[in-house]
């Protein structure tokens, strides 16, 4: 090429960048194979499966109660919500009554889990945007207190295994309630602190405004759920649309975004944290006395049939599709993981964007790889 009269044009060819499975911003063992042209992303492949544990097949060998610990390991940042989803589905399948106190406890723990999970999601998002872990560690301050409450109640911090078919595993200890009230009192101040620090920060706004826009139509076509859907302006929240436990007695708002960009998803999560605080406060006030669970047979044998139970987890609709053949173990166990379905839109969002934008967009979708791979 040198000999035959070099032309003055420069040519560039795309190259492949392999992000992950170990990378600071893939939030777990998740791999993206990106075809890049300079700083622009031309195309990307998402490669999942590094954390596959064959959870759904294993579940077919175990009783319904034995399957609850698996749901901890699916979405390890929101174990309570997944626990709750499986228990609700199994209760509907076997027609088990839940005491009212148990329902209130479930609401309290599910909402605490939502706050903890959103703190993690928002913290890592800002970390991805380049704030060197400061907001993450501030948000961990509250998350730690919530995890301490979990530990106080069920002995575990992440893999709680707390919900049971027909109630919850343990009554919270006496020191739980003052600690919870103290936390609920200080949470609104903390959330205001984050709002002051981040929502008006020029650099953060410049990095997240009009980045990774998902329109309401695209969000519904991509069957997004959770804050990713509400950030696009679709007012869909299972706690309102299809109330379970005692959510129909709680007063709270559903925050929705305006344009569907990263900033909106971030802000929706922050606002939802505030709403969760409200729900917990109402639950503390309204919780009745009584048993915290009903006794069910050790090997629960639901009548043959199928059920789809779903709850609004921190990342969206956590659905459990259970098929019973009358035996003690489910004939088919399927988990509808919100992260997997939310993630499927990343390819469309990242095409043509820069690498920095793609990283922030991925952070705003808030994936948990344990749930994607199962």
């Amino acid at each position: 090429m040198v000999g035959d009269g070099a032309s003055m044009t420069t040519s560039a060819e795309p190259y492949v960048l392999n992000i992950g499975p170990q990378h600071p911003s893939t939030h777990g063992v998740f791999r993206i194979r990106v075809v890049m042209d300079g700083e622009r992303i031309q195309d990307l492949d998402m490669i999942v499966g590094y954390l596959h544990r064959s959870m759904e097949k294993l579940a077919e060998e175990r009783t319904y109660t034995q399957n609850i610990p698996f749901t901890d390991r699916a979405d390890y940042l929101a174990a309570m919500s997944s626990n709750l989803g499986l228990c609700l589905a199994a209760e509907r399948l076997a027609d088990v009554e839940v005491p009212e106190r148990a329902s209130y406890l479930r609401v309290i723990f599910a909402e605490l889990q939502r706050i903890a999970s959103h703190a993690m999601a928002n913290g890592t998002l800002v970390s991805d945007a380049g704030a060197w872990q400061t907001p993450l560690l501030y948000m961990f301050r509250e998350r730690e207190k919530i995890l301490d409450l979990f530990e106080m109640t069920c002995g575990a911090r992440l893999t709680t295994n707390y919900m049971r078919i027909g109630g919850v595993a343990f009554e919270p200890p006496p020191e739980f309630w003052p600690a919870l009230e103290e936390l609920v009192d200080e949470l609104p101040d903390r959330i205001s602190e984050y709002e002051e620090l981040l929502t008006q920060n020029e650099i953060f706004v410049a990095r997240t405004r009009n980045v990774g826009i998902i329109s309401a139509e695209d969000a519904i076509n991509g069957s997004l759920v959770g804050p990713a859907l509400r950030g696009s302006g679709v007012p869909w929240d299972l706690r309102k649309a299809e109330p379970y436990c005692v959510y129909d007695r709680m007063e709270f708002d559903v925050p929705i975004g305006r344009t569907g960009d990263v900033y909106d998803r971030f802000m929706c999560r922050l606002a939802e944290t505030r709403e969760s605080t409200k729900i917990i406060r109402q639950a503390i006030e309204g919780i009745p006395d009584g048993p915290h669970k009903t006794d069910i047979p050790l090997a629960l044998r639901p009548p043959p049939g199928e059920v789809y139970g779903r709850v609004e987890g921190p990342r969206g609709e956590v659905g459990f599709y259970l098929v019973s053949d009358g035996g003690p173990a489910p004939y088919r166990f399927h988990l509808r993981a919100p992260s997997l379905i939310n993630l499927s839109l990343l390819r469309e969002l990242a095409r043509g964007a820069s690498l920095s934008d793609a990283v922030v967009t991925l952070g705003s979708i808030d994936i948990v790889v344990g749930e994607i791979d199962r």
Partner: protein
Amino acid sequence: MSDQPVPRRPATPMAQQILDRGSLLDDAKRLPSGVKAAGAVFALGFLAVNVAIAYIVIDGRLDGHWYDFRDLGNAIAQLRTELDDTGTGPWLSYWVTGLIGGVAILSFLGGFLLIGSWIERRLLARFQIRMGPNRVGPFGLLQPLADALKLMQKEVLIPIGADRLLFFLPPILVFIPAMLAWGPVPWAPNMAYLDINVGLLYVISITSLSVLAIWMAGWSSNNHYALLGAMRTVAMMVSYEIPISLSLLVVVLLTGSLNLNEIVAWQGSHNVWMAFLLPFSMFTFFFSSTAEINRTPNDIAEAESEIVAGFHTEYSGMKAGLFLAVELGNALLVGALFATFFLGGYTMFGLEEWVPPYLILAVKATTGYFFFIWLRGTLPRFRIDQLMTFAWKYLIPLSIANVLIVAVEATIAARWEAEGIVIYGSFALVNLALTVYAVRAWARVIGYSAELEHPEGPRTADRIGGLKAARQIRTGA
């Protein structure tokens, strides 16, 4: 199975090499005797020079009286005149003072690198409600030493497909300008190791040399992350050279000298800091230098969440340590340069008569360094295109306008030989007002909207539903 124990074989050829290599002491014993003798002479000479400096400085033998420790620079200057007077020619004083300067810069920088990383980690931890390193030694003070030891023991990996020579050189090449740039920084009236009359040009040109080393590192690593980081660094550094040069040009316009010592002396004699006179240049210099030295909010060259570690992704062991050390040292260098150009250097409104001037400069430089740490603990990172836009559309046009304004002011000051507080006070006020106005007005001109300034938060849904409800809420139905 035989009774003979099977010799354990190392897993890789490289591990075999390491086993065969023996210890460093064996290597030293195998050296030719000439090299050994030269090393001993060098070590003894190094020791002797240090002892001599200490003796001269503390005992003050040179001009017969107890030396005033405030003015270390005078001792060196005195030594230089003494050596010149011996009649051996200028080479002796040149070499001796050069050696002293080199030793001084190296020992100062080395000392700072050790304490600086501790300061940075402890402060960052405080910003992040953590404890920070507190296990090794009192308050974790020996942590940097432990880190350095660990890095030195680690194997330096060279990736397959790397250009070996180009991969080997950059950590050294990037360290040299970081040291050389300290030369003209005046620590006291006579205490600049390189008191040249083009000091400012020297600083700008020396600091821009490290681009080459970084590009070499990124290119030779045979890694796309490193290449991306190097491309970003080169684009960023080349762009931000211009605002830095323009902001320093303004300083030269007012002081009329490129000599760093005279720039400081001008600020001292006029009892004013350039920071008050030239607020826009101060901001430009500070922001641009964060881009030059890869620190938050412009650390896109090493953006951890995007491209892992940028151009030094593939470096391990002490080679990575050298890159990190340079980063740390450059932060202090920029702090010192910032203090020299904009905060009056070693002067402090007369305080330099009572306190050693080099201490004043050290305090100012570490204050600048503290600001870098503060930024790192607070701000997110820009995107590369935003950063480029900021340089080319924002900083450079405004800097050129700034040069024009200050040129007029410098002409006024020179034409009427005005020296008083009134004229410089009015310059300061005019410049501050113009800066505030121009920054806001130009932002509007290049399309910065008020909506970005105050983004709206989420709204509350008054109904629950799917697409239909979303459309109704959006249109306000």
